[in-house]
């Protein structure tokens, strides 16, 4: 088996949340959270919007386009933010690229 390597995000990556990461509403604290092995991550609205589109079929490019329309913002700017976010989440094994 080849040694696993760190994945790097690109515009053609198709990010997917692994089954072991759960998004849920935390009513007690009035927020959204991601739950993973021994991890709890509080989500702001932007992060939640990105993660909801990480279904393994959309590319980062498509994902950025959709968000750009929703936010009425330039897609290059959105793409840059999204890629930084996904790289960080991939590095923490919370998103598969």
């Amino acid at each position, binding site marked *: 088996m080849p040694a696993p390597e760190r994945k790097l995000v690109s515009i053609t990556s198709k990010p997917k949340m*692994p*089954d*072991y990461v759960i998004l*849920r509403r935390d009513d007690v604290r009035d927020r959204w959270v991601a*739950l*993973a*092995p021994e991890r709890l991550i509080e989500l702001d609205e932007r992060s939640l919007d990105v993660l909801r589109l990480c279904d393994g079929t959309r590319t980062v490019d498509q994902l950025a386009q959709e968000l750009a329309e929703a936010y009425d913002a330039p897609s290059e700017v959105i793409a840059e933010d999204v890629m930084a976010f996904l790289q960080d989440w991939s590095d923490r094994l919370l998103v598969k690229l």
Partner: protein
Amino acid sequence: MSAQLPPVGMLTELTHRCPLQCPYCSNPLELHKAADELSTDQWLSVFDQAADLGVLQVHLSGGEPTLRTDLEELVSKLAERQVYANLITAAVTLTRDRLAGLADRGLHHVQISFQSLQPERAERIGNYKNALAKKLQVAEWARELGLAITLNAPIHRQNIDEVENFFDTAVEIGAERIEVAHVQYYGWALLNRAALIPSAEETARAVEIVDKARQRLKGILNIDCVVPDYYAKYPKPCMSGWGREFFCVAPDGKVLPCHAAPSITSLEFDNVREKPLAEIWENSDAFNRFRGTGWMKEPCRSCERKEIDFGGCRCQAFALAGDAAATDPACTLSPEHEAMRALADKESGEPPPAFTYRRIGAAV
């Protein structure tokens, strides 16, 4: 005091029964027998109450939690309440069918403890035949079933030379996460400290290996390291502060601010058999005793780190300084620190004595 913030995590010791007899077990010296354990309905109620209270993560631990034949029902309840279940297991008694059933019911993560990666050494530390092969087998099943895996490696002087190997094995078995858990010395581990505590040099080398692995394995493996605090400068922020985010429920239903808290003999604990969990979390004397910073003495009281490490570990303060409200002797600012360090240097410099294995009645 003002209303207490809701807890985030709950450690449940479903049972103290365990096929392994590790000499550093985190259970108290006085172990509960099966007859003392909460019933299925009582545990289901605890999980409902915890979810209502705001708990998001539950650790199904023991003893060996899979010895509870109702584990499936408990996992279903947590899934129904969208509470994240972490199964903390020695894995030697698990079958593939059992694991598949748990995965079907909503389990996403299994944490498997590894005593050593050398078969004979693993047998000697856990006092259980063929443990390593069984654990590796269960890890393979977990991978096939799509469960996230944590490799938990309790580290001490009799396996500290394997830290590098634990990383390699974690990657080989496809683990998402490794816990390099330097043994913490209370309860059984305190009883066995001379057989377990590594030297300062060995500890420093192990810390270096972890630091290098963090760079090498970025994006491949999540690494958590519980630090060996006898050689630290500051104490660990034990439980992220007493009664602040976490609590523990013992097999008999006692609600503890930390799983080792029964070692503080001056505390009394409320029980879910008698009171609602929310009331215990808010009002229990054992929780309120060391909440916040008001209970602190010097040097903690005027310390700028008092809200960073919360005075360290209350159990360690009680065990080594004789006062649960004292500064944790792991802190270099504690008057007890030098004595603690001298003890560690002395014990780790002598040949290790035989283990006192963790068994009911072995220590009391």
